[in-house]
């Protein structure tokens, strides 16, 4: 899986896949990809850094999707 695919999977399910591989990958990355990889590792370890605005944004997008995935809209049945 690519870094973007792992990110998308996190947004979809809330789970960070391939965490050991991400840790190995971290050393080889640079720039925004390295930052994203680091964020995903921290999410995967259950200790996200909410002083980082990008982490906050990622978590909020994830929670917004989670809310929608658990929602049953009963108004549509009327």
């Amino acid at each position, binding site marked *: 899986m690519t870094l973007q695919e792992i990110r998308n999977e996190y947004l979809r399910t809330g789970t960070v896949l391939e965490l050991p591989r991400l840790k190995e990958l971290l050393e080889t990355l640079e720039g925004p990809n390295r930052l994203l990889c680091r964020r995903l590792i921290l999410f995967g370890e259950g200790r996200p850094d*909410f002083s980082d605005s990008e982490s906050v944004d990622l978590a909020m*997008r*994830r*929670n*917004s999707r*989670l809310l929608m995935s*658990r*929602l049953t809209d*009963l108004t549509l049945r009327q």
Partner: protein
Amino acid sequence: MDLRFHTGHFFLAIKDEFVVKAERIDVAPDGFILDGGDLKIAASDLTHSWKISPTQILPLSLLNERTRIGGAILDMELCMKRFHAETKQDAFVLSDSPVIFGAASLALTVISDRTSDDVDFAISSDFLRWRREKWSSLGITQTETLPFSIFAYCGNWRSRATVVSGLEGTTFRLMHPVDTVMQKLLRIKSDECKFEHKDKRDIELVMETLSPSHDMLVALLTENPLRYQEPVVEPGRRGREALAQHSSMKENTIWFLERFLPGLTYDEICKRALNQIVAPIDSMPALSLHQTLPELAKIIEADRADL
């Protein structure tokens, strides 16, 4: 598009144990903030949410009984929080926390498949007055609130009550099933035939599950002599109610005696109860939950852990 907040009419199930109502849900990095901060829930705790229109109700068939009771408990906790914020008073003093009684107390202990349309709470009078005037409940389960005086004719129920904790950490007292039985025997006859249709079955199930001894039942029935005192006949509605209450209690107790203590008459029970008025208090039979009903204690402990 990922929305940062949602408005409308929502019900949210938390860990499938509690259900809360919200009209605004703000998405936060670590979960959801409901109605501007009244309650915050962790994202992983959200197990389901339903959106309804203002004229719709959430079908109760979507929830299990335990969730409904949890919803009523949480409703009470949020109400206490609001009461404290508005009046600067606590909803209860430490030793007098709200009591869950009636069918819900049985559903949380010995009759796990027991279902009920409402959850009964006894709460302090000040809080009760405020709640009736100011609080609009969550709307999941009908919550019946009454003052502690509802137990005026019960025995030493306080010493046998156990505790459950709500989602917000409030401690509620849970009436012991045997005391719920004693309380059900006070059911007034005109009360929609509830004694015939619901209470008798509940009482039989509690008796079957716990098998309390003959002596324990006699002790429970005779603990409070006030129960058997003939009411003073006063003119008006209150006098009629007192007479009807006494007459119903007598009829229900006679049924109970015939069913579970054959050989003992109502008059004999009255005599024993009234004799205890002059008996020294230490001669009253001890009915400690853990000493007399170990099996039930285990069940209650398990329920406490779950909650």
